[in-house]
């Protein structure tokens, strides 16, 4: 296990600046999730750590050693690819044994059998070991891909959306599994996803990436409650944060620079009547079973709020809207306090 440090790393592919001036330290045993939309530079960051790309600028350190110029094999990392990348000409067993049979870490055959058996048990694929890798279902392939990373004890684990191609049920199961494994091993993990639930549940710290830049890094809670700008605020939360013009709440106390008010759905108090900060009209109700999403029209601005299904509100009702913990953003999107 080791610490990872990226120091002012940049990478460009032709006209596309994939990663810009990225500095990030992942402590030993930490689980850091990079969150961002497609094309934000998450995968490139991961590949820079793995050595599959070399940075145009900056250095990469693993365990205090400058590995910027080292090939992937010399970096002692594992990488779980989004598309599984199981070797199709090999059996599941041979796929799992592949890293242990590499010239850089020749392992005795009985030791390989033991290690592969252990990982297969952990991921519940013992009965598939003799199958060809191509005969597995998507979920099984994904588990083999994760198993190939777990079969050895590298300095760091790198995972590129390892759960994205699984169905929802398997995804949530493996998510919990992965977190357990990471904690049991005390592994240093850098994990890339665009799924905010994965980021929130797995991460020790979340790094939010947008257009190749690390916008904010912090604990899931601080990222959620204390976003640095509008972009970070909109990345987390479902339904997303309400962004409303300052002018909509004339009576609200706010910093002078505030142009936009951000309110999370659960930070809106809705009550029948007209005695809140502003008054709106219920436009539409989404019933999810355990909760309702209320779409409220306030001066032609849509606000989405969570309410208890027993609230008894109906479409067309007049409601009073009050804000708890509003977040203020300047015209350029930066947070103002």
């Amino acid at each position: 296990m080791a610490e990872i440090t990226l120091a002012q790393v940049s990478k460009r592919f032709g006209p596309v600046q994939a990663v810009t001036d990225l500095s990030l330290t992942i402590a030993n045993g930490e689980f850091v999730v990079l969150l961002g939309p497609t094309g934000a530079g998450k995968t490139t960051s991961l590949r820079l750590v793995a050595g599959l790309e070399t940075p145009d600028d900056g250095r990469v350190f693993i365990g205090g050693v400058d590995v910027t110029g080292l090939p992937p094999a010399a970096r002692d990392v594992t990488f779980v690819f989004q598309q599984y990348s199981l070797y199709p000409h090999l059996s599941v067993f041979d796929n799992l044994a592949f890293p242990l049979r590499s010239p850089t870490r020749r392992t005795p055959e009985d030791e390989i059998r033991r290690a592969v058996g252990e990982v297969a048990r952990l991921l519940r694929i013992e009965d598939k070991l003799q199958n060809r890798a191509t005969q597995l279902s998507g979920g099984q392939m994904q588990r083999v891909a994760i198993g190939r990373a777990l079969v050895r004890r590298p300095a760091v684990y790198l995972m590129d959306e390892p759960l994205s191609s699984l169905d929802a049920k398997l995804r949530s199961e493996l998510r919990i599994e992965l977190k357990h494994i990471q904690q049991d091993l005390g592994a240093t993990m850098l994990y890339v996803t665009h799924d905010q639930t994965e980021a929130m549940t797995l991460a020790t710290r979340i790094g939010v990436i947008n257009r190749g830049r690390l916008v904010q890094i912090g604990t899931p809670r601080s990222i959620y409650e204390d976003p640095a700008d509008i972009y970070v605020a909109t990345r987390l939360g479902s339904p997303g944060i309400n962004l409303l013009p300052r002018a909509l709440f004339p009576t609200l106390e706010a910093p002078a620079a505030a142009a936009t008010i951000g309110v999370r759905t659960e930070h809106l108090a809705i009550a029948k009547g007209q005695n809140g900060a502003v008054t709106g009209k219920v436009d539409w109700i989404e019933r999810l079973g355990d909760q309702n999403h209320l779409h409220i029209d306030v001066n032609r601005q849509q606000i989405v709020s969570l309410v208890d299904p027993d609230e008894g509100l109906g479409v067309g009702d007049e409601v009073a809207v009050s804000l708890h913990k509003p977040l203020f953003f300047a015209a350029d999107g930066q947070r103002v306090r």
Partner: protein
Amino acid sequence: MSGALSTAHSVVAPSGRVKLLAGAIVVLYALVALVPLLWIGLTSIKTPPDSISYPPKVVPFVHFEPSIEGYCNLFNTRSRQTADYLASLPPANSACEEITRSRSMVVVGPSNYVPRFLNSLIIAFGSTLLSVGLGTCAAYAFSRFKVPMKDDLLFFILSTRMMPPIAVAIPIFLMYRELGLSDTRLGMILLYTSVNVSLAVWLLKGFIDEIPREYEEAAMIDGYTRLQAFRKVVLPQATTGIVATAIFCLIFAWNEYAFAVLLTSGTAQTAPPFIPIIIGEGGQDWPAVAAGTTLFLIPILIFTVLLRKHLLRGITFGAVRK
């Protein structure tokens, strides 16, 4: 058969009638394609008079008695002798000797067919190995690395096939004479390789492009160098493509006639220019020519049959993505 209510009807699987039609077309084509081969095979077991008789003798044992004379004449050289001399000889010690004497000749030694056949084997397999080896390396490089002027280079490689190779026969002839490559096996191997390598690069690049890079990246992270990853991960997955390419290269090199006539005359002569020369010995020896041709077909037949599973998958590769 299920009745009119059946819903077990696939829109993609061909119906019975279509299959029957397809089968009939295949059989018809096979007949047309196989008739010359059959005729060559039959001719090889006829005697010279039977081979040129009119109307043609078609069915063995009915129209003509099969004979190994063609094969005898193929493997041996003979010389005509006087009746007195033949009478003075001890009894013939082989079937071929006997047949030869019945034509007033004696066997004087082995013909050049075996060495020519060996030349063909060495040159065809040698150039195939070289074409596919070079082709695989080049195709991998073109597929994976940033090669400067990649598209121009690929086009240049392809452009060597834009005219029939024989169009450059005279420059090659002069060049080979200068370099001392005329009538050498090495010269023929290099020549066939240079013709085949462009085909090999293009075919194999297609196959290697289909193998996702992630496999090599995974292998490199798993502790292998790029070269080891190439050997352990890329090559096994490219087998199908390599085999298909090898068969195409082999067929070209094996059957090539024009350059072989032009550039080889003795030590490096391959079978294709040799076989028709048999005609010249004591009249048109069609059975010997047919025998030489029949035997010449065998290696490529074995090679193709052994690898046909790969060949079929190779040709349809890329059409169906897994």
